[in-house]
């Protein structure tokens, strides 16, 4: 008598959660841009028997972007999910897994992410900063100014921009551009870079040579610039530029 088909799994069953954890870790391990994602909801699960102790599992997952850059060594469990008011980003993923003799592994995954709608944010928080496109001129200007400012003051290696992770612009009560971007250490000191920046090459792709910066550029009512960068291998955080803002505030 053929084995009875397994009872359909519920989305909150421990077995479903275990499979979802394997899927989310796989998705984060195989992503090279942006931020880590955390599981928000298991939307659906289907298990298809293939033979004795051999199943194919189809998962439909809802993920939410965390504040941890994808290259950060921070464990996912310690990564804060970006709140609704910070203009959350959702990931919808379809994942195919195999469960063979109790071991679950990912066969394939397909995800696409999208930011929450600005209207939703506006309804809840009229003055919250909204996500801007990554090629927005104000975002590009703020990233360039922040990185130049950091490199002009750092005692560590000269940092090059790897990718812009996020840009948010607020207009009230002040006009502020907040940016987040990934950086890589080069083989130059900041001093050497002033002489011949073209000779500064990114160091080998080792996690300790990667880092992350956050910056805010206030454009109105006064002008101000704050930037903080940290390399994953060691903490290289500058002084908060506001402390030195006498040179930067106009």
């Amino acid at each position, binding site marked *: 008598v053929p084995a009875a088909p397994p009872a*359909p*799994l*519920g*989305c*909150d*069953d421990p077995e*479903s959660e275990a499979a979802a954890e394997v899927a989310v870790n796989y998705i984060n391990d195989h992503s090279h841009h942006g931020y880590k994602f*955390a*599981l*928000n*909801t*298991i*939307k*659906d*699960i289907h298990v298809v028997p293939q033979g004795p102790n051999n199943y194919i599992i189809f998962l439909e997952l*809802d993920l*939410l972007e965390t504040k941890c850059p994808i290259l950060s060594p921070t464990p996912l469990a310690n990564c804060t*999910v970006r709140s*609704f008011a910070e203009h*959350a980003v*959702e990931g919808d993923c379809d994942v195919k897994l195999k469960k063979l003799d109790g071991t679950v592994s990912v066969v394939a995954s397909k995800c696409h992410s999208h930011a*929450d709608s600005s209207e*939703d944010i506006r309804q809840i928080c009229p003055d919250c900063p909204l996500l801007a496109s990554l090629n927005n001129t104000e975002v590009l200007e703020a990233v360039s100014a922040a990185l130049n400012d950091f490199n002009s003051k750092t005692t560590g290696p000269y940092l090059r921009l790897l990718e812009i992770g996020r840009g948010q612009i607020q207009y009230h009560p002040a006009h502020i551009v907040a940016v987040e971007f990934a950086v890589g250490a080069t083989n130059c000191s900041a001093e050497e870079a002033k002489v011949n920046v073209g000779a500064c090459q990114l160091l080998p792709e080792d996690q300790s040579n990667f880092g992350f910066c956050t910056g805010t550029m206030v454009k109105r009512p006064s002008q101000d610039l704050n930037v903080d960068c940290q390399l994953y291998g060691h903490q290289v955080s500058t002084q908060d530029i506001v402390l030195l803002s006498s040179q930067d505030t106009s």
Partner: protein
Amino acid sequence: PVRKRAVAEAAQHDKVPHPVGFVPPPPPCPGKIRYFDI
């Protein structure tokens, strides 16, 4: 031929009424929302 309506009526009569206070189990999917829904 059995008319659909007859089958439906028959099924209705065969339906076992739930005991008083019966709470149907939550649908198996989608699962719980761990943070918030957007």
